[in-house]
């Protein structure tokens, strides 16, 4: 993990008050309810939370590829570091099928997905699908595009690139497919790589190799990474900064060390406790957080974690929206335990 200069530098991408609402039969689901974070050059931000907490929707909203049922609002400001024309651009303001957003997708902000098998179309060779992005963003000439693609395949550690280039997704193993996915994403050397649970579908050994590959590529190409996962182990290994999400909100955000050694929010603590420890007592059952994630539909203003929180304060946590409290300049938490003002004065 490379430690970087202080936050004073301009962030590559700053997400402010992102809200995603989905019209369901029985009301309006607030999948993402006011999320703010920033992505900095060369740094990795981890977005962690149980499935269904809105982390995937948040990551996909950046390049607005969420399905049409999602009504997205708020602002995602992108300040390109290496392209003059894109000094300051609110991605959400762009029309999802417009030329502008398309020039950013894959070229400036790339994405890799959880299920490599279904992410690739079975009908076309891996080479064809990789070249596609290159031919849109970098060069129209086929030979040149193929050369770049082969380079990328080599860079991600795939051997015998010539043969592999003409093979189909079903002829690749799980790990190799994910590597091909990464090579595709990075083929136009984007500034930001969004990785939506990149290794969940892989077994542990391959997982480590892929993560190691991502770290080395980050070091070499200097792109920022937004890593979406539910696996705290990966967070520890990869991320510089972590944002814990619960029920569409970021409940705690801090540098990775702070989260692991000085967790504040009861949910974060619960998550950490349920992680298997090296040398832990094997006979004892891992304790898990009681209850399950409620559906964020027509939720009254209260803390989402209230039902399952051991340290909840009756009358406070379940009566009003929880404001965000800043513990230190890099560490903030959304919980009344740490908020001085209890009766609703939000910061």
């Amino acid at each position: 993990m490379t430690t970087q200069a202080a936050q004073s530098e301009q962030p590559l991408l700053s997400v402010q008050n992102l809200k995603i609402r989905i019209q369901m039969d029985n009301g309006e689901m607030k999948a993402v309810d006011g999320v703010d974070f920033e992505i900095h050059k060369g740094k990795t931000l981890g977005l962690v939370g149980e499935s269904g907490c809105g982390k995937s929707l948040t990551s996909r909203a950046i390049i607005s590829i969420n399905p049409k049922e999602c009504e997205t609002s708020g602002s995602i400001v992108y300040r390109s570091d290496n392209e003059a024309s894109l000094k300051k651009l609110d991605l959400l303001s762009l029309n999802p099928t417009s030329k502008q957003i398309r020039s950013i997708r894959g070229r400036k902000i790339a994405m890799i997905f959880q299920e490599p098998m279904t992410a690739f179309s079975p009908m076309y060779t891996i080479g064809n699908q990789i070249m596609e992005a290159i031919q849109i963003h970098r060069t129209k000439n086929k030979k040149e595009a193929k050369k770049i693609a082969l380079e990328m395949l080599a860079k991600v550690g795939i051997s015998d690139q010539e043969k592999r280039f003409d093979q189909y997704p079903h002829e690749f193993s799980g790990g190799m497919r994910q590597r091909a996915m990464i090579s595709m994403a990075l083929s136009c050397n984007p500034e930001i790589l969004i990785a939506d649970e990149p290794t969940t579908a892989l077994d542990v050994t391959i997982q480590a190799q892929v993560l190691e590959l991502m770290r080395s590529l980050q070091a070499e190409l200097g792109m920022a990474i937004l890593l979406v996962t539910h696996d705290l182990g990966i967070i520890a290994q990869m991320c510089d900064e972590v944002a814990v999400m619960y029920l569409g909100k970021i409940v705690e955000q801090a540098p990775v060390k702070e989260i692991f050694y000085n967790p504040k929010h009861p949910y974060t603590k619960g998550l950490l406790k349920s992680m298997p420890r090296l040398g832990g007592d094997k006979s004892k059952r891992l304790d898990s957080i009681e209850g399950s994630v409620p559906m964020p539909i027509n939720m009254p203003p209260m803390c989402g974690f209230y039902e399952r929180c051991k340290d909840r304060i009756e009358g406070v946590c379940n009566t009003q929206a929880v404001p965000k409290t800043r513990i230190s300049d890099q560490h903030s938490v959304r919980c009344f335990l740490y908020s001085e003002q209890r009766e609703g004065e939000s910061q």
Partner: protein
Amino acid sequence: MRTMPVFRRQKTEAPQPVKIKDANYSSQWRLIYLRFKKHKLARISLFILAFLYLIALFAQFIAPYGLQSYDSKYVNAPPMGFRFVDAAGKFHIKPFVYELQSTRDPETMRKIFVSNTEKRYSLQFFVKGEPYKFLGLIPTSTHLLGVEQPGRIFLLGTDGMGRDLFSRIILGSQISLSIPLVGVAISFVLGLIIGGISGYFGGWLDSIIQRIIEIIRSFPTLPLWMALSAAIPPRIPVVTMYLYIVIIFAFIGWTDLARVVRGKFIALKNEDYVIAAKIAGVGNTKIIVKHLLPGFISYLVVATTLAIPGMILGETAMSFLGLGIRSPATSWGVLLQEAQKIENVALYPWKLIPLGIVILTVLTYNFLGDGLRDAADPYKK
């Protein structure tokens, strides 16, 4: 398809079961039902179909007249509705209908129908009429609606022999709504199994089945029907005959579905999850049913709903050979066949109403299929 298993009720191994509070974890079918309910059009279609089948069930009771109510006085009469206000402007609570008198235009010999405003016949319910067996069991002769004797009510007009078209449509629905489904089901099952085996096992079994399919497809059906029409005993009940035809249709019709199922199976059989199931020792049939079939439920649903119109109308092509439904029994196909004369299109257009009914049925089946297709598709958010 992959994520479908996720919804499956988790078999928890833990000693004390985790308390499941709300409906987040429900069985796959319940989920499909939930999403199906969301599908407005499919719900309406389901309602219409249920209504049609209800009428078909109580056809004899609902239809005011029977199949053999020939009446030369009312040949090719236009539809007539109920009235509330009579010629003198007086309003009547009970809707009524005038006595229909028919004369012949001396020059064109066309039947002219004039309502005689003096005689009024009011609507009656549970009126006495053609004897029949209610649900095939209880002999009775009460009909749902009718008019005072000797008045006649032809809601949708009459056909070339003076029979009430409204009654014939309803009575025809008994056959046209039931038997074609048998045919569709048979060809569906055959196509699925044979196509599946051919696609799944491949190799010599596949080529044999493909050759059999080719032989069946190049069968000339016409001589078959002619041989059948000569061989069928005349007194055979209409329904059984129609059943034979539909079964034969099914035995010839399944090849299309089999071809597609084979194509799909070949494509899906090397999917990881299928191989995983194989390794886990799951039996072949279970793999086909549990894993492969859900893979293209949408095509199956669409193909089934598409086969229905073909089956409903199938027997009309045979009627000129003396096969198919023979008078006095009737079906929608027969009604359409009878309407197929220039004079009907030109002079008696109401005889085309059965066409509207068949289209309605086909529409509802297809929208129902649409609803099912969407509900069963896990990827649809």
